[in-house]
């Protein structure tokens, strides 16, 4: 469904992605692991058009994405839940959601059923939410655009363990709806719990890929070689 082949991306003169290739199939949840600065976020930004790859191609449902506008890619059905959540702090929770709504299965009504806490907080300012609530709002907002694929950038970063469990439960339920997901994470255990397949990125290159069974076998190697700080 989504396919990146030998993407090279730069920030100014620094070469961040040095030929990244990966694929996410329909209904699959794929994880992308790596240390800080390995190129995880840049990979996501290169998919959605915020960063323009200098070479390589990104196709989604058979269509080339490189060179398209950010909003065009979003309308084609890819929704990024960004690293710092991108909540509009001056808007209420409900306004944050309402401006994202596009026609489809997800509506304001069923998103409130999915995340009851957002219904309770709907009149609060986006800036007044806790980290976990902001993360839920950001995921909810992404879903309301009714995408075919969600890109999640470290959804559990900086959250307390109890909250992480809530987020993981929500992600499992989202996966069960048949949504395709590319999940960027640093937390190995969360990836193991959620993902069908895994990629590990290091210094802008994919250095490991495998399915859940491979990953269970290689767990210790991957952790020590690629993720240990």
């Amino acid at each position, binding site marked *: 469904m989504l396919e990146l082949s030998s993407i090279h991306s730069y920030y100014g003169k620094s070469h961040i992605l040095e030929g990244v290739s990966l694929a996410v199939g329909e209904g699959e949840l794929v994880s992308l692991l790596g240390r800080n600065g390995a190129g995880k976020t840049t990979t996501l930004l290169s998919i*959605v058009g*915020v960063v323009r790859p200098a070479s390589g191609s990104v196709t989604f449902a058979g269509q080339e994405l490189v060179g398209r*506008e*950010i*909003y065009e890619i*979003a*309308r084609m059905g890819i*929704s*990024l839940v*960004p690293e710092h959540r*991108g909540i*509009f*702090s*001056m*808007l209420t929770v409900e*306004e*944050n959601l*309402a*401006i*994202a709504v*596009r026609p489809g299965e997800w509506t304001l009504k069923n998103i409130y059923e999915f995340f009851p806490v957002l219904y309770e907080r709907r009149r609060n300012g986006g800036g007044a939410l806790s980290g976990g609530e902001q993360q839920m709002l950001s995921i909810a*907002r992404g879903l309301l*655009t009714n995408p075919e694929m969600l890109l999640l950038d470290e959804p559990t970063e900086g959250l307390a363990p109890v909250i992480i469990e809530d987020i993981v439960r929500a992600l499992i339920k989202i996966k069960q709806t048949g949504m395709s997901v590319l999940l960027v994470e640093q937390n190995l255990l969360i990836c193991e719990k959620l993902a069908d397949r895994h990629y590990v990125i290091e210094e802008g290159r994919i250095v490991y890929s495998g399915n859940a069974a491979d990953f269970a076998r290689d767990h210790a190697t991957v952790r020590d070689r690629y993720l240990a700080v």
Partner: protein
Amino acid sequence: MLYLFQVLNGLGLGMIYFLISAGLTIIFGLLNFVNFAHGAFFMLGGYLCWSLTELTGNFWLSLLIGPPAVACLAWVAEAALIRRIYRLPHTFHILVTVGIALILQETTIMIWGPTGKNIPVPAGLQGVVTLWNFAYPTYRLFLIAFTSLIGLALWYLLEQTRFGGLVRAGSESAEMVSLLGTNIHRLFARTFALGVGLAGLAGVLSAPIRGVHPFMGPEVLGIAFVVVVIGGMGSFTGALLGGLLVGLVQSLMSTIWPEGANLMIYGAMAAVILLRPYGLFGRA
């Protein structure tokens, strides 16, 4: 009674300033764009009012046609020129928009001549309204009421509609708004046209009171910037309170100390900046 007269004058003037500054501040808030041509578009509204009133004898027609015409011109300017320079530093915004302002001003002189013109007070709103022994021009009362309605409509648009939500969201992060699938170029263009259209509307409304002349643009632009600085860059409420404050100060001072009226406007701005560097409703 004299003071009541001046307070009402100040409110009317303040609401005109509010319309101009609201446009300026909405554009700055969303597009992070400094529009030095704003005053010239205000002037253009005034001249369209004069021409349409001359041509048809009907002020209301000019109120209906003038502001959308100014907004259309802004739309064209945005598509042709301005959208190419959003990414550049503010100095480039100033350079290009001052250029647009000069072109508009010189074109105005070519079409309408270098001297000013007066616009008659519209039929039906001539004369005065008398309450007990206090008389006040009908048109000025209409002005206060009408601009208040426009202010309410604008508040509704910005606070209660999806468009308004997107404008406010875009002022925080245009990129995030794009990521949600909104065509950001169209949103910018509409917002620019709306903001400039408000200046055009203010130009039409104030024409019967103050007349028009080719050099009114820079004058009103200066005041609009004072209002925006007092109210806080990008703040709609700030533009309302700032506009009223400047209008009242200017109007009252013209009775108390006429020579110092303009000085006191800048005095008010200085006082606000000393107490609140980002303006009444500004954010760092």
